[in-house]
């Protein structure tokens, strides 16, 4: 499966997906309700069985964006999938049932951005202390915010 074949296949199956990306990279933006379906399609039909990473970006008033990169190691092809839950929304379907690699990355995104991954089997904090206040990677969170519980 080459990048061009994948592009055609995605266009045929997901008409609402936007495909772009610099320098031939396959970057696909899908609506939130097709997030898990697209990941399933990428795994089964595009052969992207390698879970590279999951992260999020805070676009301030435009809301959050969740970014996932998947690789097809056999054909050396990658897909970056993105979705935007919308302003003020921090809900996103979980990919952990599909890719076990998403487990820790979603937990990290949950504590850093406050994104609730629906369907995640164990959405606990990963890196920060249990009593941490706020979501540090949001743009509204100042770098010098004091950590209150110095007891």
């Amino acid at each position: 499966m080459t990048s061009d074949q994948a592009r055609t296949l995605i266009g045929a199956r997901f008409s609402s997906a936007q495909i772009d990306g610099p320098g031939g990279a396959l970057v696909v933006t899908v609506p939130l309700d097709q997030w898990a379906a697209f990941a399933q399609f990428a795994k089964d039909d595009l052969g992207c069985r390698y879970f590279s990473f999951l992260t999020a970006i805070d676009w301030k008033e435009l809301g959050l964006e969740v970014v996932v990169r998947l690789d097809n190691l056999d054909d050396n092809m990658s897909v970056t999938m993105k979705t935007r839950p919308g302003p003020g929304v921090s809900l996103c379907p979980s990919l952990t049932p599909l890719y076990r690699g998403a487990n820790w990355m979603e937990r990290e995104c949950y504590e850093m951005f406050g994104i609730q991954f629906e369907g995640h089997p164990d959405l606990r904090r990963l890196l920060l202390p249990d009593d941490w206040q706020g979501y540090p990677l949001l743009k509204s969170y100042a770098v010098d915010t004091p950590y209150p519980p110095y007891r």
Partner: protein
Amino acid sequence: MTTASPARLEVDYAGSERLTMNMGPQHPSAHGVFRAVLTLEGETVVGVDAVIGYLHRCHEKLAETLTYAQYPSIASKTDYVAAMTSEFAYVRAAETIGKIEVPKRAQYLRVMAAELQRVASHLLWLGTWCMDMGGALGGGATIFLYCIRERELILDLFESLVGARLLYGFYQVGGVRYDLPAGWTATCRETVDLIDRRIGEYESMLDDNPFFMARCQGVGVISRELAEDVGISGPLLRGSGVAWDLRRADPYSSYEDFQFLVPVESSGDCFARYGVRMVEFRESLKIVRQVLDGLPEGPVSSRPGLKSVAQTRIPKGEAYARIEGPRGEVGCYLTADGSAKPYRMKWRGASFSNLSVLPHIIPGHKVADVVAIMGSVDPVFGEVDR
């Protein structure tokens, strides 16, 4: 879900009572601050809950506050055992967005530093891992001291090149910071030849050692399917039968100019990972020799003498740059907004993904095997927690 947190632990008093045991966060075999909450039935582990974050410094937030010129030397603090490759991933991401050319000599020097770093990192892995495996290896600390002795030689090389022994700041956007000092090449060749010979000595101590084999053969098997699903990389992935090396699959920084083998083992156990790394030692040394032989003349940076923050502006855009580090795919996903600082940086640490495979492979093993498996994964917690 294979992890079991203590709160949800079911205690069965019908004869198979379970015990929850904390391994870490100050356990010597963890090679860092890592806590594994093990659920035991007798000596057998039935559940693992990995607790990380003790070394979290919020690199990703920090990167948003530092310019493209400042952050590379901070990036070296993610994976401090292989600081060179961490810097490499960041500068490459910035160069991809900014379409910044890197002179050929700088590309070769980058490859050379990265490969020497791989040898240094693997030496530390081999030494500490063999020490974990304990008395079976002639008193345990023998190989550790041998490996540290050789690693010192590489750190000496780095010291005379950069001035620092652990965290370098050698890579910068557009090239590297320093050219080779006089006489460095000859010292480097001697060191490479010496280490090449010494690696043969380690192999003769380990390869036919029945205690060593008993502790790592068939232990901690990672299937190919699990390896891809979790996204492990580097020697772990190649030990699970996937011929995937970014230096070959997605060549960067003139790696296509060099001849080297990509070792692959199919058994997926600790011994396979050991086998892959032992071949990588020699292949890295081979690449270093080729760099020294073919080092082109020219400048070492396309943007020398940067004096102001404004000169480090990168246009709007995004890029994911990945490097084959000693532990696997070190990736930097950078989003630039046209200012002198990134809008967002995601660090994909190889150790993070590699470590997250532990809860899937440890259950069913004895407690002593956990130590062997942890060591074979070779995590660096600076990179896990970032």
